[in-house]
C-alpha cells in the first residue's frame, strides 16, 4: 500500500508539489491524470527518491514504512518500482547484465540468495518471451538504439523480473503505437495481484482502456483536486482539464 500525506516538494526553489495526499491500496490500480506541468512526473521522481527534488513537508509510506528518508536503491529493495517516462540509455552495459545486477542487488538487500547466471537467464527468458523482447535486445546495451516501444517493453520486463510490491508507471503510454500499447498493457495486467498496487500516470484515457483503473485522480498544480472512478477519465477525455484547473486556481 502506498500512502502519500500532504507532500510538498520543490526543485531549484520552485514549488511543484503542494500538499498532495493520496492512498493506493494493495491490489488497487489508481490512475493519475493531469495537464502538463501539474507535477505528475515530479510526484513519481519524489516517491522514487530522486535527489534533485527537495521534500519540504509530508510523508510517503510504503506498506507502513516512511520511505522518504531512504535512498532510492533501498526504496527499490523494499518493493517500489518506477517505470520511467524516458528510460535512460546506458552505453556499454548490456541489458541482461543490468537486469541481473539490479535483481541480485535487491535480493541481497532483502537477505535473499543471489541468483546464479543460469537461474537468472531462465527467469529472464520466460519474462522476455511474454513481452516480445528478443534475446538480441537483451544482449544490446541497455536502451541504446531501442525504439520508444522497445524501451517501454523493457521497462515492463524489468518490473516483471523485479516483482515489486508497488509499481509507478510514468506515462508508459507515451511514444507507443497501438500494438506496443497492447503488449505493454498486457504485461502490466499480468502483474496485477491482490498484494500489489499500481499508480498509473497518464495524459490520456487511451492507456486506461487497456489497464483498467479502480480509481482515477485528477492532479493540478501539485495536488489531487478530484478523485473518482473510471468514468472520471472518460469525462476528462471529453471535456479536457480546463474546468478542473480553473477550479484549482
Amino acid at each position, binding site marked *: 500500500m502506498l500512502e502519500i500525506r500532504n507532500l510538498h516538494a520543490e526543485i531549484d526553489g520552485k514549488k511543484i508539489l503542494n500538499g498532495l495526499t493520496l492512498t493506493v491500496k494493495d491490489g488497487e490500480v489508481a490512475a493519475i491524470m493531469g495537464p502538463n506541468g501539474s507535477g505528475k512526473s515530479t510526484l513519481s521522481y519524489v516517491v*522514487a*527518491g*530522486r*535527489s*534533485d527534488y527537495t521534500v519540504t513537508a509530508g510523508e510517503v509510506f510504503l506498506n507502513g514504512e516512511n520511505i522518504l528518508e531512504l*535512498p*532510492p*536503491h533501498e*526504496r*527499490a*529493495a523494499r518493493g517500489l518500482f*518506477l517505470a*520511467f517516462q524516458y*528510460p*535512460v*540509455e*546506458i*552505453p*556499454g*552495459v548490456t541489458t541482461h547484465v*543490468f537486469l541481473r*545486477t*539490479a*535483481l541480485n*542487488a*535487491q535480493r541481497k*538487500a532483502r537477505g535473499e540468495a543471489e541468483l546464479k547466471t543460469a537461474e537468472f537467464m531462465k527467469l529472464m527468458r520466460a519474462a522476455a518471451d511474454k513481452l516480445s523482447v528478443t534475446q538480441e535486445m537483451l544482449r544490446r*546495451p541497455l536502451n541504446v538504439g531501442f525504439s520508444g516501444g522497445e524501451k517501454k517493453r523493457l521497462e515492463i520486463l*524489468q518490473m516483471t523480473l*523485479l516483482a515489486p510490491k508497488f509499481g509507478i508507471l510514468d506515462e508508459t503510454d507515451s511514444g507507443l503505437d497501438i500494438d506496443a500499447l497492447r503488449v505493454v498493457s498486457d504485461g502490466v495486467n499480468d502483474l496485477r495481484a491482490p498484494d500489489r498496487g499500481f499508480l498509473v500516470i497518464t495524459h490520456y484515457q487511451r492507456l486506461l482502456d487497456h489497464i483498467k483503473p479502480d480509481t482515477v485522480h485528477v492532479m493540478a498544480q501539485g495536488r489531487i483536486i478530484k478523485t473518482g472512478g473510471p468514468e472520471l477519465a472518460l469525462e476528462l477525455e471529453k471535456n479536457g482539464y480546463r474546468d478542473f484547473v480553473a477550479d484549482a486556481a
Partner: protein
Amino acid sequence: MAVQLQTVRTPAEEAILARLAEGGRRHTQTREKAVARLRANGLPNRRVEAWHYTDLRTLMRDAPPPFEAFTDDLVAQAMGQSAALSLKDAAHVLFVNGRFVRHAGALEVVDADTGDQAAAGDAYGDDGAVALHRAFAGRTTTLRVPPSHRSIVHLDFREIGTDAFSTFPHLVIEVVEGADVLILETHRGPNEIGYQTHALIEFHVASSAKVEHVRVNEAGNKALSLSTLGVDLAARAAFQSFSLSLGANVARHQIFLRSLGEHAKIGLAGASLLRGRQHADTTLVVDHTAPRCQSREFYRYIVDDMATGVFQGKIVVAPNAQKTDGGMKSQTILLSDTAAMNNKPELEIFADDVICGHGATCGSLNENQLFYAHARGIPPAEAEALLLEAFAGEAVDRVGDEQIREQLMDKVRDWLAQRVKS
C-alpha cells in the same frame, strides 16, 4: 640578437650529463646527436609544446643509473614472477630490467649491440625523451614476423630490484608483407621503487601486413614509465594498438605513426585508470603522408583523487594525402574535484579532400544513468562501478582478441573493486 635563456640544470639533468661524460658507450651518429640535444635542451619540459602537460624536468626528480648488474639469479628471480597478462600459444619474449633475456616459440629474434640505430631517419628524433633513450640505449632487439600464418607474440617486460635504476630497451619489429601478428606488450615492476623505464619500439609494417598491438602498463607505483612507439605503415597495412594504463607514478605513452602507402588502416585506442597522484599522458601523432588512409583514435580516461590525465592527439594530413578519413575521440570521467584532465586534439590538414574530425569530452558520471540504476535497486557504489566498467569497456572493446579483452576487463574490474574498498 636572440636572447638565450639559460635554465639552471636540475639534479637529474646534472646526473645524466655526468654519466654521459663518463663515456664507455659506442659512438654513433645517432647517439652523438642525442647527447648534443640533451646538453643543449635538457629534459623535455613545459616550454616544449609537446611536453607542456608532462614536464619531465619537474616530474623526474632524479636519474637513477642504467641497470647493469645482470646475473643468472636475477633472471631466475624474474622468471619466477608472473606477467601482467598471459597469452596462450604466444612466442614469449622476456625482458628483465630492460634487457632481452630469452624467447620461446617460433619467431626470429636477434639481440645485438647495434651500430647506428636510426640511420634511416625517423619522425621523432627531435623528441626529448627519445634523445634520452638514444643517449643510453645499448642493444637493439629485432623481431622478424614471418608471413603465412598468424603469429602471436608476448613482449614481457619485468622489472625487479630493490634500488632505483633506469632501463632503455629498444626493439625493432619487422612485419613482412602479408604477415599477420598479435603483439602483447606488458610491463610490470615493483612498488615503492623509483625506477625509470623507457621502451622504444619501432614497427616497420610492410604492405598488406596486419598488426594488432596491445599494451598493458602495470609499472610500480613509484615508477616513471615512458614509452615510445614508432610506426611506419606501407600500403594496405593495418595497424591497431590499444593501451591500458594502470600503473606507474608518471607514465607517458607516445605514438608516432606514419602512413607511407595508400589504403593503410589505423586504429589507436586506450584506457587510462588513474588514482592517487598518478600522472598519465598519451601523446600521439598520426601523420598521413599517403592518400586514402583511414585512422581512428579512441581514448578513455577515468581520473580519481588528485591524479592527472593528459591526451594529446595530432592528425596530420599531407598535401597529397587526399581522401584521408580520420576521426579522433577522447573522453574522460573525473571522479573527484581534485582530479585533472588536459586534452589537446590537433588537426593539421594540408589536403582539401579529406574527412577529419575530433571530439573531446570531460565530465562526471551521468546523474540520470546513476539514478536509473539506483531506482532499480543498485546501490550507489555498485552503480558507479557498473557505469565506469562500461565506460572503460567501450575502449577495451576495440581490442580484437577475445582472450586479451577478457583479461583487460578483469583488470578494469580489479581497479574498480579497489575503489569501492577504499
